[in-house]
């Protein structure tokens, strides 16, 4: 059966192994005899990219992959890493843990990459991270759930996205800075609800403001009149609407109907431009939105703009820029392209007292001279805690005016 099925292929099959043998022998011979630079060009250094190209993250994933490629192109134009050309191997995580795990297995077991960059959804990162630390592969992510950096990842994970704790603290600082004395927080029932409320309450108190009440509401309700009544009984100057677009839309309507005249504050994913289109202007007037922002004042941001050829790279594009730079610099510093090498050296190139650099190429040049560097990224300072969280980042605050977002400040 076997022979009949493959009979037609016989000549081809006999030729194939011979050709492969010759190729391998050639590579071995070259490897043994040729100078280092020739060997380098023969075996590129492969780095893994695992962004969602489809699914809910399908808008951000391709742009992140592009931003990483742009950095790697610059690195290659500058002679590559450890004398080798760098190649990004891009897999689609599909915003789906199961698909992402399969793709990660391929990158780890078949391609044998030292680093995987780009997981987006928290569920995907939670699923992929154990594969990475078990195989000593370095992972960089934008997922925000607090639980991610608390995984026992042994240092094989960093994230450039602020976690809930950092976000809640920063939001509360901003709210207090507006002179708000009494804040109320309405959160949708979600894992981030309670930690966000607790952290915001702490920081408001530190800053001389006060959280006068919090509540967690059920999703998928057609009205939140009673919840709004509960909030208004505490007479707040500002209500923080910590939910998603469908429920925050209803809350904004119900607050308007109840003639609430105080400030309203929400995440930018809850009050999107589509939400503004779906509501009358008088309902959304004055709403303040917040989102993690790229560090628009950083020289690294200017370089990212030029490199990508876009006027305003967003938070995701700049974070991807920083991953490709951090991983490249850590490999150069470690002088070896392994996950453990990156883990042990990443904090040596992005924090501490070295010369500040704003791009991978700039850093590689100084490292080659044996100097210490401190990479400052386009997304922020890129300083990490022991568990891999960023220490600080910028936020962009917008105010809705006449149905449009107007920039208040980046801080």
């Amino acid at each position, binding site marked *: 059966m076997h022979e009949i099925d493959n009979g037609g292929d016989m000549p081809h099959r006999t030729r194939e192994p011979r050709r492969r043998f010759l190729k391998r022998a050639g590579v071995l011979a070259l490897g043994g005899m040729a100078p280092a630079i020739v060997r380098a060009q023969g075996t590129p250094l492969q780095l893994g990219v695992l962004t969602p190209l489809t699914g809910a993250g399908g808008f951000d994933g391709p742009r992140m992959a592009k931003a990483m490629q742009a950095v790697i192109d610059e690195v290659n134009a500058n002679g590559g890493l450890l004398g080798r050309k760098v190649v990004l191997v891009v897999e689609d995580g599909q915003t789906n843990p199961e698909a992402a795990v399969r793709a990660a297995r391929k990158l780890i077991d078949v391609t044998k990459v030292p680093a995987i960059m780009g997981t987006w959804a928290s569920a995907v990162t939670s699923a992929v991270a154990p594969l990475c630390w078990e195989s000593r592969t370095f992972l960089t992510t934008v997922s925000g759930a607090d639980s991610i950096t608390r995984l026992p990842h042994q240092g094989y994970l960093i994230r450039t996205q602020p976690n809930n704790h950092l976000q809640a603290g920063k939001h509360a600082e901003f709210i207090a800075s507006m002179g708000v004395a009494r804040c109320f927080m309405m959160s949708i029932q979600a894992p981030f609800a309670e930690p966000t409320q607790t952290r915001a309450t702490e920081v408001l108190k530190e800053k001389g403001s006060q959280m006068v009440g919090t*509540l967690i*509401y059920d999703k998928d309700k*057609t*009205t939140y009149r*009673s919840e709004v009544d509960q909030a208004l009984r505490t007479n707040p100057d500002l209500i923080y609407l910590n939910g998603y677009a*469908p429920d925050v839309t209803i809350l904004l*309507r119900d607050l308007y*109907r109840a003639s609430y005249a105080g400030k309203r504050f929400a995440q930018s994913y809850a009050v999107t431009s589509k939400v503004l289109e779906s*509501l009358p202007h008088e309902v959304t007037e004055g709403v303040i939105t917040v989102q993690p922002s790229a560090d628009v004042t950083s020289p690294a941001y200017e370089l990212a703009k030029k490199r990508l050829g876009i006027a305003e790279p967003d938070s995701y594009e700049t974070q991807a820029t920083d991953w490709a730079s951090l991983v490249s610099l850590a490999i150069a510093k470690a002088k070896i392209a392994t996950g453990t090498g990156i883990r042990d050296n990443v904090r040596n190139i992005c924090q501490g007292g070295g010369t500040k650099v704003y791009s991978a190429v700039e850093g590689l040049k100084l490292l080659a001279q044996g100097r210490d560097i401190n990479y400052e990224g386009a997304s922020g300072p890129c300083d990490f805690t022991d568990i891999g969280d960023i220490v600080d980042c910028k936020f962009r605050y917008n105010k809705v005016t006449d149905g449009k977002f107007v920039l208040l400040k980046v801080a």
Partner: protein
Amino acid sequence: MPSLADVGQLLVNGVMAGTILAVPAIGLTAIYAVLRFPNFALASHATIGAFAGYVANARLGWPLLPSVATAFVVAGSVGVVTDDTVLKRFRPAGYITTAIASIALTIALENVVRFVFGNELRGYELPIQRDWRIGAIRVGPQQVTNLAIAGVAMAALFGFLGFTRMGKAMRAVADNPMLAAIKGIDADTIGRIVNFVGMGLAGLGGMLIGLDTTIDPLTGFRSILSVFAAAVVGGLGSIPGAVIGALTVGIGEELCLLFLSPDYRSAVGFAAILLVLTLRPRGILGQRAY
């Protein structure tokens, strides 16, 4: 300690929420009474009604009442077509098969809406009015309008069932299909009428929900469990029961806020189902259609 005004406000909110819930709940229970299966496709028909009303109101610029009528007619017509082409074939296989087919149908229809209109939130072109304050109680003009529309729709349905030949025939089929057949009532025609009316009410309910919130392809799906709870509490198959069930669920979910955090609101609706069915397995009013 909550004040009397707080309790009064919660009661008012509960009645408002319950009345809107009652409209699709009547649709669900009417279809169950005649065709004897829980038609979960009600969810997508509520969405279709909400979007039909949206097209009439926001795209064609029609005022509220003609838009609401459009929601009823379009959802009702789609209901007749989907039942004739899809669900009718499943009915001989039993009510569980048909109910599961109705879930498949609702997901398919919801995706048709998503394909045509996309995923984003949409709002009707109606001004949002500030609430009236009557003493310490807050009442929304839009919700009073919704209450009136729901009230008129229910009164019209009761009139139809009580006084028209077709309505009486529908009740006859619901009470005793075999006897109705012997008397020469055409079950197919009655099936179409009940689908038109039932799904029309679902569409109307979907639009009423949308008037208070915003609409997207999941509008109906988000409410279907509460609608089902209302119909079961009142007595699946009993039309006045659906109204009483909806008010029980609506008021119960609001009054629970006196003792519980708002995130347990949905749980109360379903605890009500368990309680009522434990005490009265056939629901508050039993299963007699009218």
